[in-house]
């Protein structure tokens, strides 16, 4: 094993004596509309007939392991075989913190209402909005995405999904130069060089290594025949099992990519040190890449969200295109949410753009920095929001969250989240992959069927059903208005 280090600093973590911040305090800091959300409501579990369902797909990450065995008694999930810790936790705790009734906010209280009332209020908010934003769509099925986009089109609003802050740059890079992609099976059966660049599947896609890197393939003999290279800004856990670890300066990956491309193009690198990597190491890595039989770069947010964002990915795509002059080489973006790829795909076939689509003029438009959810919220460009299957308050910047506290917000979600504290209307939905079926797309764009293994709680619909009802209501109200 080889290492190239920039020198590491040790970090010490101490216990704090400060009191733990309460949820209420957090909500107050974020200026939430409701400070007390009724979390802690669980679906009552009843043991009963024991069933084992095989080949269940896991609604956690874009690895979309579709080989889980789920053991159920009554409506209690008791075992998850094949899933990672996250998967086990999701299945076994599916009943916890559930929203079981629709709610409407009255002043600073959430009040239980009937589905009819909630839908009516939601439709009112949307129809009265001049420019609503629909956001989420990555933790649900493709069918839901399709309805959400239809709704945005009817409302002439904007619709976006979390690509906007994770792998959106990958889409933008494809828009600019294309790319060379691959799928799991080809990696397993052919890849003799796997480069993890700015990604750490040990923590993010837990089954990824045992599924794709360790197994013996048809033309390659498992881990021992594969070289693993890790390129990251710090020595990750994954680096310990790599054949070569290269540490780059944070945010400077493009320099290294450019240098690799220069090495492939026989251009001299005149600086001794590229983004913290010695020149000889660059030549060595380039040689390794060019002489691999089938190489794959599995990259994560370390590439997409560094310094020059989509330009980093663009250069990476070009590197791989260049490498195909020598050998077979491809990339695989390590996507996050289990159906974030599907939300891109559905958006593409309906609107022609992968995310950040706006319908203000009656047709689809996508301008990065203009129609992206983050920009719309931070600058206060929208006057209502519908959040389906996502928790933006937990991941968005403060300014964006603050705008959510100023505008009416509708949340469709199976579980209580921080975002529900910003909601004016909450409509509970079934969990896709457990209570609702549909399609989701794996990180390599392979569509996977998400099974329904349990019924949703009484009175709770799947999110696509809710959106369908909402669409009908919006059409009726708009027609009535006209």
């Amino acid at each position, binding site marked *: 094993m080889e290492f190239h280090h920039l020198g590491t600093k040790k970090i010490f973590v101490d216990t704090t004596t400060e009191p733990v911040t309460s949820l209420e305090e957090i909500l107050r800091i974020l200026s939430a509309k409701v400070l007390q959300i009724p979390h802690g409501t669980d679906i009552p579990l009843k043991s009963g007939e024991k069933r084992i369902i095989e080949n269940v797909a896991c609604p956690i990450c874009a690895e979309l392991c579709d080989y889980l065995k789920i053991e159920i008694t009554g409506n209690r999930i008791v075992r998850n075989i094949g899933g990672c810790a996250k998967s086990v936790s999701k299945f076994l705790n599916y009943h916890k913190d559930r929203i079981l009734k629709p709610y409407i906010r009255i002043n600073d209280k959430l009040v239980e209402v009937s589905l009819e009332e909630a839908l009516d209020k939601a439709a009112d908010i949307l129809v009265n909005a001049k420019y609503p934003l629909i956001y989420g769509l990555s933790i649900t099925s493709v069918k839901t995405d399709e309805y959400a986009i239809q709704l945005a*089109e009817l409302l002439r609003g904007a619709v976006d999904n979390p690509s906007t802050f994770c792998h959106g740059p990958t889409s933008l890079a494809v828009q600019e130069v294309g790319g*060379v992609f691959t799928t799991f099976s080809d990696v397993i059966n052919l890849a003799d060089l796997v480069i993890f660049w700015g990604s750490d599947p040990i923590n993010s896609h837990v089954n990824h290594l045992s599924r794709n890197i360790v197994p013996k393939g048809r033309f390659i003999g498992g881990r021992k025949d594969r070289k693993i290279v890790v390129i990251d800004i710090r020595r990750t856990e994954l680096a310990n099992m790599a054949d070569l670890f290269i540490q780059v300066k944070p945010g400077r990956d493009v320099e290294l990519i450019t240098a690799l491309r220069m090495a492939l193009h026989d251009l001299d690198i005149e600086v001794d040190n590229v983004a913290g990597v010695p020149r000889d190491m660059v030549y060595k890595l380039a040689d390794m890449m060019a002489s691999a039989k089938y190489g794959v770069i599995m990259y994560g947010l370390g590439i997409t969200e560094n310094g020059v964002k989509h330009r980093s990915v663009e250069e990476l795509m070009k590197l791989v*295109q260049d490498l*195909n002059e020598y050998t077979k080489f491809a990339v695989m973006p390590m996507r996050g949410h289990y159906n974030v790829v599907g939300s891109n795909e559905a958006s593409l*076939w*309906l609107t*022609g753009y992968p995310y950040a689509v706006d319908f203000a003029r009656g*047709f*689809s438009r996508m301008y990065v920095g203009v129609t992206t959810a983050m920009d719309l919220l931070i600058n206060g460009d929208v006057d209502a929001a519908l959040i389906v299957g996502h928790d933006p308050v937990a991941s968005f910047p403060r300014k964006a969250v603050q705008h959510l506290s100023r505008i009416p917000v509708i949340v469709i979600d199976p579980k209580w989240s921080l975002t529900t504290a910003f909601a004016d209307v909450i409509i509970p939905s079934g969990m896709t992959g457990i209570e609702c079926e549909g399609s989701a797309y794996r990180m390599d764009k392979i569509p996977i*069927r998400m099974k329904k293994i349990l019924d949703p709680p009484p009175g709770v619909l799947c999110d696509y059903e809710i959106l369908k009802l909402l669409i009908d209501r919006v059409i009726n109200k708009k027609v009535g208005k006209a």
Partner: protein
Amino acid sequence: MTQILIKNGYVFDPLNGIKGEVTDIAIKDGKIVDPRELNPEEGITVINASGKVVMPGGIDIHSHIAGPKINIGRMMRPEDHYTTNKPGVFPYIRAETGLSTPNVFRIGYEYAIMGYTLVAEPATPPVMTRHTHHELNAIPIIDKMAYVVVDSNWMLLDLITNNDPKLLAAYLSWILKATKSYALKLVDPGSDFAWLLQGRGLDISDELPVYNFTPADIIKSIAEAAQVLNLPHKLHVHCNRLGFPGNYATTLRTMELALNIHRVSEGLALHVTHVQFTGYKGDSWSTLESGGEEIAKELNSNPYVSLDLGQAIPDRAVTTMTADATFQFVLYHIMKNKWYSSDIESDGASGIVPYKYKKKNYVNTVQWVIGLEVALLARDISRVFIATDHPNAGLFTDYPLIFAWLMSKKARKIP
């Protein structure tokens, strides 16, 4: 019970020899009946078609309208969407966008406007067909179907090696059923396997890497399995060496294979698709000639094949997309712009490259000629289908142009 009466249209029905007669068409329970059979008491929907043409719906047997490839094409070509929009009409007409990579709504609306009612998506890798169906479902108005790509599927190659035709037929039958597709498709048979392993393509008699048989063997085995399964559209073949000068010889050899197939069911044995791309005579691009005459001759003498044109449309910016990854890599070097390629779960591979056909380009002109030559020299036109291999050689919205070229010498004159 629905009853429809289409009144006073110019009716065309080639099968019954009706050529523009003004008459009424009655439909009862989804079937065309004698107008006298309609029962006025049960309510009749009357459509006044006077001044309009009433004809059977058009069928496009080869148009890339759905699936992962076209979707990536959409992603890769935002510039195709920026200025080609048509807003939706509240609440049921959806917004349209894109020319060479249109969204699902434009596909449905435009086909319906042209009088087409059934369109086939000609290449969907088995594992991706769920995606293809998502898109097909989203296309409004028209009927859709898909052909499943089976040429470089490893399991299938193994079955061909084992020389067990029955098991092969059973496997193909399962694939068709599991993917809910209509026909079998071969794309540059075996080449994607060679591309995956070695980054190269194959001619029809080159041996595959690892396996010791040739693309010709793949075509023959699968065509015979299709005979056993008695498929309505037996085998849709995109020939080897597509896009390389001199490939008309490969096309002719592929067509000849139809004669040697052990036929146990009725109908045609092979369909050779977008012959324009595989009808190049000459040693290089500069000596390119049309092989259309030879292909038409072979078609006229070989009763077991049909073909479609893949007609090139001059002055049209297109997005070439095919499961022929090898050729797309070559095209990328010609265009030097964007290139997308993807290997798909050991089922195959694909590539996408934007392209533009130019009126003044010699090669493009020859390409334009090939399609027309084949169609005009063919004696049995029921075995020649008009298609542009949308969006590879032109757009499906350009079909009226092709109709004009085929029917009028004046229209064929290059302005």
